[in-house]
């Protein structure tokens, strides 16, 4: 078989929102772009985003602006965010939303005809641009159609729609190639035929999304196998803060087959309340000290807030996701859960059936068809589900360049830093637009300055040998079985509540599976063979799980998406520390690195008494850097 070879300026791995936005930017900068994705074009996990995209356009409450959004993002992340990413995100998000509208997106409207914005957990004002509860679909379709529009331009001008930008659907990348310490391309296989593909390119943008499939109960699709995290590690890049995983508080818990599927936070944004099996609206018990002046401590005030947001505090159902997930977990553990191990989420008492079907159409659909529950009449049963990884590739905020690997860029969920220890709902869709664009621009600037970097034959041979390995192995291990074992380990030992002893056990067990994975044998041939595909996905998930477990063991405190039963409090000294994962070809090691210090102008955006809850007295005295 002759090797399929392509030459591009930029290769983008992943065709979700971040990848497509990066592609548009690089293409508009005059570069040739390959978009490589594991699924069909337009199926990326971005379609699953329901609630909306957070941007301080101020269309519903004109008190909103980037500074308020920045503050909310930092609070949500418990001040572990890379301040510069949170700043860029808050400043640029409105432009990214308005730009989508120019490309044909049709968001829901306010009475004045502007883009409507809805309330969401942790956001001080109504901030999420949305289309019912299918905002992610609107975003991906708009980006997809923008790509097609640019291809139509090329067809008109050059007679070839794919001259400057081509989508390689159903291709898995197994290795990022380097020569002389810099990016030279990427290597992989076509899922359809199993035949191998070489991309030669001086810049690679990783936009592969998340790692949810490492866990047993997850809202993520099969694609969320941490490919980009692992590819980056193997290429010599670092991952930052991999201990932080977001367990979305509301996944479906029943029937078994749909366990983990997301129930959008919009249900709570639109007035849904959480109750336990005793009928108690339990969230009032779980308002942490740092949020006590922002959330209502009684039902009457919480209910009034929906009508009058200026004079009442928010209902505690709208606390950041980590708080709500932990609260639900505690209720269930205390024996106040539902029959199927969740709690009740009810929107039927506040909204009419008609309004529910209009504002939450896919939720109605999902519960009616998969669980036989009519959410306009009865409550949903919900519980935490692994939803999002805050940790990811360590990048330079302005260019999205991966630290330590010239020519490598990362954006979207696969990049770390932006969300700190916990992401606010709605910040993901704008994250991937803001940093997708910046990664596309960063890659374009890099290529213009550096030029081509040819791939050597030796690198090609090495990459090819790796793909052949599972077919020649006679070890007899089954990839599906190993994947299930890994999911049990992460679920039981690296899940929502962790302890040092369990994490130590997890690290040993993950290493054992990793050893056994070297003996995976595949049945059948290369043609669209899911067993073969899983062998590679599993290798990635194992690296991610190792990185997460090791980072989690080191962090002896509880913060955001990392809860240690043996270290239950948040600790200001730990806030100053990032955990950096690197890979030596054999194992992942973690080192501590100081968190970048908030500069004075951003420090001054906060009330100093609020910062005292998060920072050491020495930091407060210093008042930010410079």
């Amino acid at each position, binding site marked *: 078989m002759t090797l399929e070879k392509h030459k591009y300026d930029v290769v983008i791995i992943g065709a979700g929102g971040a990848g497509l936005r990066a592609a548009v930017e690089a293409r508009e900068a005059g570069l040739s772009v390959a978009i490589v994705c594991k699924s069909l074009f337009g199926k990326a996990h971005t379609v699953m985003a329901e609630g909306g995209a957070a941007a301080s356009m101020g269309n519903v409450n004109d008190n909103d602006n980037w500074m308020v959004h920045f503050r909310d993002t930092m609070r949500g992340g418990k001040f572990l965010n890379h301040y510069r990413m949170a700043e860029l995100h808050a400043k640029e998000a409105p432009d990214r939303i308005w730009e989508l509208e120019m490309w044909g997106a049709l968001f829901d409207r306010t009475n004045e005809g502007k883009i409507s914005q809805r309330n969401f957990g942790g956001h001080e004002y109504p901030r999420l641009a949305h289309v019912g509860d299918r905002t992610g679909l609107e975003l991906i379709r708009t980006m997809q*159609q923008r790509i097609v529009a640019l291809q139509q331009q090329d067809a008109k001008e050059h007679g070839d729609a794919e001259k400057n930008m081509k989508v390689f659907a159903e291709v898995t990348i197994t290795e990022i190639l380097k020569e002389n310490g810099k990016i030279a391309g990427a290597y992989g296989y076509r899922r359809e035929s199993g035949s191998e593909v070489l991309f030669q390119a001086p810049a690679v943008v990783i936009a592969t999304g998340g790692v949810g499939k490492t866990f047993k109960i997850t809202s993520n699709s099969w694609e969320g196998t941490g490919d980009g995290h692992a590819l980056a590690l193997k290429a010599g890049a670092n991952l930052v803060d991999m201990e932080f995983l977001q367990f979305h508080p509301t996944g479906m818990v029943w029937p078994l087959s749909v366990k983990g599927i997301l129930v959008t936070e919009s249900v709570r944004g639109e007035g849904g309340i959480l109750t336990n099996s005793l009928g108690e609206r339990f969230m009032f018990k779980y308002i942490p000290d740092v949020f006590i002046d922002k959330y209502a401590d009684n039902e009457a005030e919480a209910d009034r807030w929906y009508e009058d947001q200026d004079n009442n505090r928010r209902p505690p159902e709208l606390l950041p996701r980590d708080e709500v997930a932990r609260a639900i977990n505690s209720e269930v553990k205390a024996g106040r859960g539902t029959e199927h191990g969740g709690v009740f989420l009810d929107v039927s008492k506040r909204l009419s059936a008609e309004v529910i079907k209009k504002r939450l159409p896919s939720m109605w659909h999902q519960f009616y068809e998969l669980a036989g529950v009519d959410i306009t009449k009865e409550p949903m049963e919900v519980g935490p589900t692994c939803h999002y990884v805050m940790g990811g590739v360590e990048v330079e905020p302005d260019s999205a360049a991966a630290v330590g690997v010239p020519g490598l860029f990362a954006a979207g969920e696969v990049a770390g830093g932006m969300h700190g220890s916990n992401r606010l709902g709605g910040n993901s869709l704008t994250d991937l637009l803001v940093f997708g664009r910046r990664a596309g621009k960063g890659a374009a600037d890099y290529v213009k300055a550096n030029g081509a970097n040819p791939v050597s034959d030796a690198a090609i041979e090495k990459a090819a040998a790796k793909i052949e390995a599972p077919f020649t192995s006679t070890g007899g291990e*089954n990839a599906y079985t190993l994947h299930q074992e890994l999911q049990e380990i992460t679920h039981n030992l690296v899940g929502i509540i962790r302890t040092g002893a369990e994490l130590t056990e997890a690290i040993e067990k993950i290493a054992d599976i990793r050893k056994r994975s070297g003996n995976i044998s595949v049945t059948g041939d290369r043609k669209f063979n899911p067993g073969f595909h899983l062998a590679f996905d599993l290798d990635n998930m194992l690296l991610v799980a190792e990185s997460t477990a090791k980072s989690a063991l080191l962090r002896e405190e509880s913060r955001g998406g990392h809860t240690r039963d043996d270290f239950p409090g948040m600790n200001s000294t730990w806030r100053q520390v990032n955990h950096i994962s690197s890979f030596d070809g054999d194992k992942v090691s973690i080192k501590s690195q100081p968190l970048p210090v908030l500069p004075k102008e951003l420090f001054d955006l906060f009330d100093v008494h609020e910062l005292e809850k998060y920072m050491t007295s020495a930091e407060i005295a210093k008042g930010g850097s410079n």
Partner: protein
Amino acid sequence: MARTLKLRIWRGDDKTGGLQDVTVEANHGEVVLDIIHRVQATQMGDLAVRWNCKAGKCGSCSMEINGKPRLACMTQVASYPEDEVITITPLRAFPVIKDLVTDVSFNYKKAMEIPAVVMPEGMKPGEPRMQQVDVERSQEFRKCIECFLCQNTCHVIRDHEENKKSFSGPRFFIRIAELDMHPLDMLRNRKKTAQEEHGLGFCNITKCCTEVCPEHIKITDNAIIPMKERVADEKYDPVRWLGSKIRRREEVL
């Protein structure tokens, strides 16, 4: 395990293939995609199937279940009687690649043939003002998850490969209708091109596409029929016809 299921799964490729009998356990509340995954993990490691979200939102796991075009992730096993054998086959309108996976590239080619939205000249980001009622008509069509079940069931192409060249199919009629009803789109003659370039005239309104749409988009009533009526207005109304001729003569003079 709640019950034992008997399945017949089509296995093969572009050259040869046939139905294979499989017996597998099924739990309460499971959907057909769960069963396929169990078969994959325990009996047929290389059984090819596309899927992504498993929540009816991405439109990847389209196949035919007992001859009906469906999403496997939204099809409850319990909806079939205990003793019924469930037959699972790939989409019929598209060429098989392997097992339940078909080559749907036809659809991406057709997408490329529809001109993108054209914004009013000089309009800047942040400026558009639209009323909710005005965006809702297009929003209905933008719910489409591109599962291509409507394309698969449409009799114009289901068993007529020769029509594919001149017929874009229901998925792309709603795309054209969406742009045609888009409050800001400035490109004219979208309906006319639907008729002349995308084969709208082939459709004889049997509504099969609407029936299989998992998003319950009223493809025929809200997109196809309105476009057909408007096209008919312009094409067959004698007064308009005369008007167009007179105008043309004036242009000649």
